[in-house]
């Protein structure tokens, strides 16, 4: 009955509500896949952003004198070309902030395009808040003033990962496997370099790349890994490649830890289920399942109420939203992005949800320095599990201010 009323009401008040709010909002363009193969990840990210913006900023009165954060979604279909088209549409709408995370290829295209755009159009510049693309180059060789990264990049994660391996005396042989593209290669070369530094006695019994997204059956790879006698494997794979290599290895007799970059949530936790317990490890920033702070538990409960099929899998999203809000307040403007960027540079921020240690947006390269963990795949009770599967990720090892002392090669031009 209630729905019938709503339906009738909807038909009657033709669209009055939609137009009224817009004017004062701080609009943030979310450019990520909402259709196509990675739509699930993108959609979940969007939900996390919307929730974070509402819960952490808008509920508390917004920024400046009551301006609200408004997430505007743009579907880039994981295509660099579409991303650039959508970027133009976003600029038309007067949007000053762009968030994106899925795919370093897209991130490269966006950071390059935004850099060019800001140089060519000093009147409507914008900032790129990268929440997930982890190619180290983005804050090194290809860094620019307009780009800020909130996730730990691949080398930082590898630093933590190799620390963990180095501490484990049982591991003598390591197998590295990844997708054949820049990120897979970056992971492999960082692993080799850092292991050689930290544990020269460890033997790399395999280091290989497989074609991205086109291997149907990972069994032959799993056979090689098992035959090599490896005690641990490292993989930067994501999506179906992650699932494929992980499941194949475990099912065909591999019993050591499988260290991954993307071995959780987005259907992967559910698909591993019991198989992954004791083997599957993840290197990531952010929260434990369940998180220790009651605020965070409350936050997750509220999120799951709203999006029962979703996951709070990218804790950094709340950092993006909160740090942006702080920077805008500090700069006293949401339209002059140079000022906002300057406020973000070097910002110290203590997160109320996931970690007690302060996060620092390093001014030199716009890389967020934060705590990074190694997590293990274990049974977890709802609602703190991933994919409603009864499994989740729990801390096994943590490194504060991870990667702070890694070399960096960013030479930033400032306006």
């Amino acid at each position, binding site marked *: 009955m209630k729905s019938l009323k709503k339906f009738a009401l909807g038909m009657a008040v033709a669209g009055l509500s939609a137009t009224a709010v817009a004017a004062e909002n701080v609009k943030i363009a979310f450019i990520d896949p909402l259709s*196509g*193969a*990675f*739509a*699930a990840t993108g959609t979940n990210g969007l939900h996390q952003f919307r929730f974070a913006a509402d819960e952490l900023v808008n509920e508390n009165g917004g920024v400046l004198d009551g301006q609200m954060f408004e997430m505007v979604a743009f579907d880039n279909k994981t295509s660099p070309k579409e991303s650039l088209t959508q970027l133009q549409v976003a600029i038309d709408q007067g949007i000053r902030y762009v968030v994106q995370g899925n795919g370093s290829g897209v991130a490269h295209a966006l950071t390059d395009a935004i850099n060019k755009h800001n140089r060519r159009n000093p009147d409507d510049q914008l900032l790129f808040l990268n929440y997930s693309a982890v190619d180290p180059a983005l804050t090194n060789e290809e860094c620019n003033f307009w780009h800020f990264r909130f996730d730990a990049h691949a080398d930082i994660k590898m630093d933590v990962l190799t620390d963990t391996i180095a501490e484990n005396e049982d591991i003598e042989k390591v197998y590295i496997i990844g997708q*054949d593209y820049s990120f897979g290669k970056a992971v492999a070369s960082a692993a080799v370099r850092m292991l050689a530094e930290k544990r020269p006695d460890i033997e790399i019994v*395999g280091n*290989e*790349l*497989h*074609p991205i*997204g*086109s*291997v*149907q*059956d990972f*069994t*032959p*790879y799993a*056979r*090689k890994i*098992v*035959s090599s006698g490896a005690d641990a494997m490292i993989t930067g794979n994501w999506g*179906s490649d992650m*699932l*494929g290599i992980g499941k194949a290895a475990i*099912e*065909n*007799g591999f019993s050591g830890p499988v260290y991954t970059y993307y071995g959780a949530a*987005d*259907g*992967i936790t*559910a*698909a591993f*289920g019991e198989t992954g317990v004791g083997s599957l490890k993840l290197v990531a920033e952010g929260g434990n399942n369940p998180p220790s702070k009651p605020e965070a538990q409350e936050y997750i409960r509220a999120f799951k109420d709203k999006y029962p099929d979703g996951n709070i899998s990218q804790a950094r999203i709340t950092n993006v939203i909160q740090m942006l809000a702080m920077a805008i307040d500090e700069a006293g403007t949401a339209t002059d992005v140079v000022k906002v960027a300057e406020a973000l540079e070097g910002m110290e921020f203590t997160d109320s949800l996931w970690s007690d240690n302060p996060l620092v947006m390093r001014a030199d390269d716009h890389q967020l320095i934060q705590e990074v963990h190694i997590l293990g795949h274990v049974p977890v009770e709802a609602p703190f599990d991933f994919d409603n*599967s009864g499994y989740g990720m729990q801390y096994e090892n943590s490194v504060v201010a991870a990667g702070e002392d890694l070399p960096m090669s960013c030479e930033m031009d400032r306006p």
Partner: protein
Amino acid sequence: MSLFIVNILDGFVTGLLLFMLCSGLTLIFSMMGVLNFAHASFYMLGAYFAYQISMFTGFWVGLIVAPIIVGVMGALIERYGLRRVHQYGHVPELIFTFGLALLIEEFVQFFWGRQQVPYNPPAALDFTAFAIAGNTFPAYKVFMIFMAIGLFLVLLYILTKTRIGMTIQAALSYPETVQNLGHNVPMVFMGVFGVGTAMAGLAGVIAGPVMGTFPGMAFTLGAIVFVCIVVGGLGSLWGALVASLLIGWIQTFAASYNLRMEDLLIWLGFEKPMLIWESPWQDLWTLTLPQVGPILPYLLMVIVLVLRPQGLFGKRET
């Protein structure tokens, strides 16, 4: 050596799976002259239907019911879609099946979402059949081998021992005789399309749990199936069998053996540049066999088509 044996077995499983698709595709092509671009999409539908059914009734019911549903869908699509397009010629038919493949993928995403669904082997088969030097061989794969061989035998029986089978066989060798079948030709077409797609569906049901059930599964396999029947020779069932096994092994062995271009180049007397990542030839030097594994079938297809357009065992020119 033990790894070699395991690889032979793994490649055999892949090859048989490919053949389950290829045989249906070949039948359809031989009878109707249609290269069904959407064949692998029916394979995907088989996996998804079986997953959906297995949620309610368990794996075994899905094994039987899902291929039937897929076959009925295939027959209906032939009746109300393909037959209509048939009058315009073969190229529009090919384009129709291409569109169908796109549409089925969209429909699967529409109903089941974009993530991989947790479709798993039945508990009864979730154990290790045997192990060779630490490499375990799951019982489920043994089951797959028996299923594929069983299907092959049934097919062989129908083709050689039944009247309709012999007519179909005649049509395989002499396509022009199809018109003189003396049967209800439209019914035969519908039947062949239905059976062919049902076989693809069955392949999907048994492959879904090991290869993963996700919207991209049709796309990654579909092109390879095409390669198999083109390489084997359009219209040749034996060719399809040989090509399927060949490609199954090529893919398995290419992934298993880390032959490196570096070794080959050094053997040929070239000197590896000191700073390999600054050399313009870096990609050549660092190339390995697993990297190129998945494109080997395409390379094979192009070479075969250039040298022998009728395929390895084919008698018909396309």
